[in-house]
């Protein structure tokens, strides 16, 4: 196709597409008359179309049909447009579009335009489509990653640490922001020993991370001393320690396994936690609820939920600016209405600020992500939007920003509580119920975009493993691909809906301006009836402007935001797949290690060194246990992820159906209004005399 010696082909009707190259010489005749230099330039290759379009459009567009029909060798590529003879002429104007369609269907015009474009240009997928939020939010991500370990840090995901260390370790720009974070580090009383030291140190210099991690004992102390309600699996703290130092996945995992060997008892505990994630947490804190909810299986909860018996309504309202200047923040009223017995009362309200929502996410993510749960991500932090709110006063765009965020936070919470396991988490209950929530540490830094970026990075990091993993499970194999595709299409769709929002806003603005202009025209018109009709038209346009504006806001809140949510959620789903992959990797590494140990034993046997033989045997036994354990863990996480994804798909289908129906209803309403407006105008137009 890209043969450079070919001359440019003329446009051809679709039916002739395959003949493109054969015909290209003939087509070239069509161009001989022109002096345009591109004419001789090569070939139907992908870069050509635009040139042609510019240089020769009329010809391109109308030429070929005739040329094909006439089959004249020498082509004066012209197209006859059947045009206004007597009656047709009338049609041209009064029924322009119907006429259009007729003409379009006639063979002559079937393919007037750019057949040249038929060969698809292999343009690279635009990056913008790929990960739009990421670039803008670089600063925030960094915040996120530079978080020092905090209360529940012990369980933080290893990938996250690895990535943060690797990616952002040497970035200092955001230190100030970071230091702003209040120093309430954990929500539980704790001894002012080593942990405090650790944190202070981190605060003063973000880059002492390795140091922090070298101090696991302290972390453990803290862990041990904090509330029993939280039992973050201790094993991961040690893995995170190691991971923080290494950037290559390979090392990362092998090291991790070595470390893990020391923690095996703790690991067992983690295993138990993982088996009954919904049970362990609430059991420790609120006794009343533990009897009811955790006894249900996931499926039961799912059922209950999908049958809409789920009785928990959460609303986020009354966004309010607290404080002044750059220290100002937005606080929201979070109201809960429920008959669930796990809560102390049926209705209650708390005030929460944005960072509290982010803090909640971080806690949940740390506890549940690694078990394969889809933890709904919160809306992105927007420095730009928030700065506007902080600085600006009555700016409509900042009002829109606040409303957008409020709605997003509401949806976020609703998604959290509608997750049967997350609902049982004490942190969720605390978030909804507790009057005063300890200020979340370093959530200033957390952002959904950062989370996404992290996920992407993590995905990249494990992508090599993906190849090696050689997926045995067909279901996962397909699902991973599906989610990948779906995310891509959603991103694309989101960009388009955003564009619609913008164009609709633009249309609204332009309609308003036109309405004013028509009003002026009406006032200068000296025919009374026409003048009146024009000012009526101006009024109609004014109302239509309103309509467009409302529709733009519906486009945005009902449609675009839905897509934005699901792009984030799909990111979380991918995160779950990654967690599963990691479990698999750990299992494989353990297998390899076991293999090595066995080889070592064989060597010892061969070398006849009985003194070391016992130790080798012990190690083999230890690793055999590990392999079994990791394999079970992998199977467990696979099962959880699978359940989660099925649940997610159900919820997604329900969400989309509900929201899109709502969106179509808003469109319907717009059209009804339009009909009303124009019906009122019609007699005015007819009254012109």
């Amino acid at each position, binding site marked *: 196709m890209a043969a450079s010696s070919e001359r440019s082909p003329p446009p051809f009707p679709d039916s002739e597409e395959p003949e493109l190259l054969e015909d290209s010489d003939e087509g070239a005749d069509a161009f001989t008359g022109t002096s345009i230099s591109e004419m001789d330039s090569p070939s139907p290759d992908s870069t050509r179309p635009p040139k042609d*379009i510019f240089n020769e459009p009329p010809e391109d567009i109308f030429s070929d049909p005739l040329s094909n029909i006439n089959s004249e060798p020498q082509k004066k590529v012209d*197209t006859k447009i059947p*045009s206004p003879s007597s009656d047709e002429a009338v049609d*041209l104007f009064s029924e322009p579009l119907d006429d259009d369609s007729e003409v379009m269907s006639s063979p002559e015009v079937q393919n007037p335009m750019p057949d040249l474009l038929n060969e698809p240009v292999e343009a690279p997928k635009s990056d913008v489509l790929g990960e739009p939020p990421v670039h803008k939010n670089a600063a925030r991500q960094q915040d996120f990653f530079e978080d020092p370990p905090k209360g529940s840090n012990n369980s933080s995901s290893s990938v996250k640490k690895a990535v943060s260390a690797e990616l952002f370790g040497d970035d200092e720009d955001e230190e100030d922001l970071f230091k702003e974070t209040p120093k309430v580090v954990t929500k539980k009383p704790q001894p002012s020993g080593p942990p405090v030291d650790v944190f202070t140190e981190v605060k003063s210099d973000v880059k002492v991370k390795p140091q922090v991690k070298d101090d696991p004992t302290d972390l453990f102390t803290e862990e041990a001393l904090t509330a029993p309600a939280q039992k973050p699996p201790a094993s991961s703290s040690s893995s995170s320690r190691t991971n923080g130092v290494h950037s290559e996945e390979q090392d990362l995992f092998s090291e991790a396994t070595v470390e893990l060997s020391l923690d095996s008892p703790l690991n067992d505990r983690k295993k138990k936690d993982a088996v009954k994630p919904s049970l362990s947490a609430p059991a420790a804190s609120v006794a009343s609820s533990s009897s009811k909810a955790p006894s249900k299986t996931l499926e039961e909860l799912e059922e209950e939920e999908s049958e809409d018996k789920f009785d928990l309504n959460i609303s986020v309202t009354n966004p309010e600016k607290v404080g002044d200047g750059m220290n100002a923040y937005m606080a929201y009223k979070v109201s809960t209405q429920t008959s669930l017995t796990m809560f102390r009362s049926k209705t209650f309200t708390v005030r929460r600020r944005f960072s509290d929502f982010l803090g909640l996410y971080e806690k949940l993510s740390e506890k549940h992500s690694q078990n394969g749960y889809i933890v709904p991500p919160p809306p992105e932090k927007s420095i730009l939007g928030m700065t506007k709110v902080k600085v600006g006063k009555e700016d409509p765009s900042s009002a829109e920003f606040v409303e957008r965020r409020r709605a997003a936070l509401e949806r976020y919470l609703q998604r959290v509580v509608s997750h049967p396991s997350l609902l049982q988490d004490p942190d969720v209950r605390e978030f909804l119920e507790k009057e005063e929530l300890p200020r979340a540490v370093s959530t200033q830094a957390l952002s959904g975009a950062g989370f996404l970026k992290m996920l992407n990075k993590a995905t990249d990091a494990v992508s090599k493993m993906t190849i090696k993993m050689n997926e045995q499970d067909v279901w996962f194999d397909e699902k991973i691909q599906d989610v990948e595709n779906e995310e891509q299409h959603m991103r694309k769709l989101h960009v388009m809906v955003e564009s619609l929002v913008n164009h609709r806003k633009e249309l609204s603005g332009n309609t308003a301006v036109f309405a004013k202009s028509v009003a002026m025209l009406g006032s*200068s018109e000296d025919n009374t009836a026409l003048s009146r009709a024009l000012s009526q038209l101006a009024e109609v346009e004014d109302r239509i402007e309103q309509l467009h504006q409302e529709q733009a806001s519906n486009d945005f809140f009902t449609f675009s935001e839905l897509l934005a949510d699901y792009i984030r959620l799909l990111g979380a789903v991918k995160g779950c797949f990654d967690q599963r992959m990691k479990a698999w990797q750990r299992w494989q590494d353990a297998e390899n290690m076991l293999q090595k140990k066995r080889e070592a034993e064989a060597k010892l046997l061969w070398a006849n060194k009985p003194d070391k033989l016992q130790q080798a045997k012990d190690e083999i036994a230890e690793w055999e246990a590990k392999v079994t354990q990791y394999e079970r863990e992998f199977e467990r996480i696979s099962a959880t992820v699978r359940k989660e994804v099925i649940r997610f*798909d159900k919820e997604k289908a329900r969400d989309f159906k509900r929201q899109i129906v709502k969106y179509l209803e808003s469109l319907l309403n717009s*059209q009804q209004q339009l009909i009303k407006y*124009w019906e009122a105008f*019609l007699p005015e137009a007819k009254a012109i005399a």
Partner: protein
Amino acid sequence: NSDKLILENTNPRAVNVDLQTDATLQVDISDALSERDKVKFTVHTKSTLPNFKQNEFSVVRQHEEFIWLHDSFVENEEYAGYIIPPAPPKPDFDASREKLQKLGEGEGSMTKEEFTKMKQELEAEYLAIFKKTVAMHEVFLCRVAAHPVLRKDLNFHVFLEYNQDLSVRGKNKKEKLEDFFKNVVKSADGVLVAGVKDVDDFFEHEKTFLLEYHNRVKDSSAKSDRMIRSHKSAADDINRIASTLYTLGTQDSTDLCKFFLKVSELFEKTRKIEARVAADEDLKLADLLKYYLRESQAAKDLLYRRGRALVDYENANKALDKARAKNKDVLQAETTQQVCCQKFEKISESAKQELIDFKTRRVAAFRKNLVELAELELKHAKGNLQLLQSCLGVLKGDT
């Protein structure tokens, strides 16, 4: 003069002018040919007038020849008292080309279906522009053919009948420069002439009216274009949303995918309607305003010529007074004064009727177009409503 016009046949062809012609001379453009950057119009004439050799004939004309005809009217002193029908605008396919280029650039990021759809859109758009161009040229000829005096013009007859190229060439640089200076002088003079208080209330009123009207219709025309452009963009967005929803819907065969397909189908239909709304607003509103922008300019030009003649006449009077006082060249001054007086009176006489006709035409055209606009808007909104209702019915039935 216009009362001589025999109203035998209404010609509803012309959009923006409510023209009335008789059967003795009917002109239309039966065909048009788009050839590279040229458009060739086949001008078809039916006439019973004795100065044509045949009763029915066709010739091929290009845009430049229309301009030549228009300019020959403008330059003819005899027609100083008439509103010269505004020349048709040059065929402009730039916007369409630009979009085509965008299509080419964006091709990599769309699926084959999307691409085909976009292409069809652009084809339709190109066609619409083409038709508009043809219509504008036809309107010009119809206006001339309906004009009691201009229809008898020799150049016009040559334009209609001579079956070869008129060898009209575009103006060269020097001529363009001359035109430019002429225009500068004219507009400076126009200010001067406009400042002269008219003795005639009718003309004084028309002058004030046209100055303001022209500016406002210019503004409205520009604003309507912008409004329609963003409407088209929005329709394009819906089109692309429909395509992507289609892709999403074909990924799998789940319930949700079927749902997406239905919504995609709906958007595919509604975006067509949205595009039609934009296109009809373009035809009924924007084109109307554009036409009256040019027509009001032509009317202003007429007032300028009359104003100029008035100033000339007054100057001739002064010169005659001077000549009489000095008793020198009195006869010559008298002749000049006579000529100026006649010219002014001749212009005034026809100009008054022309301006009244202009108003009648304008009111009728606005009525026709606004009624049609409202009807089309209603038709489209109802179509949209019906689509939405039935789709919602299906979707709600499913869920």
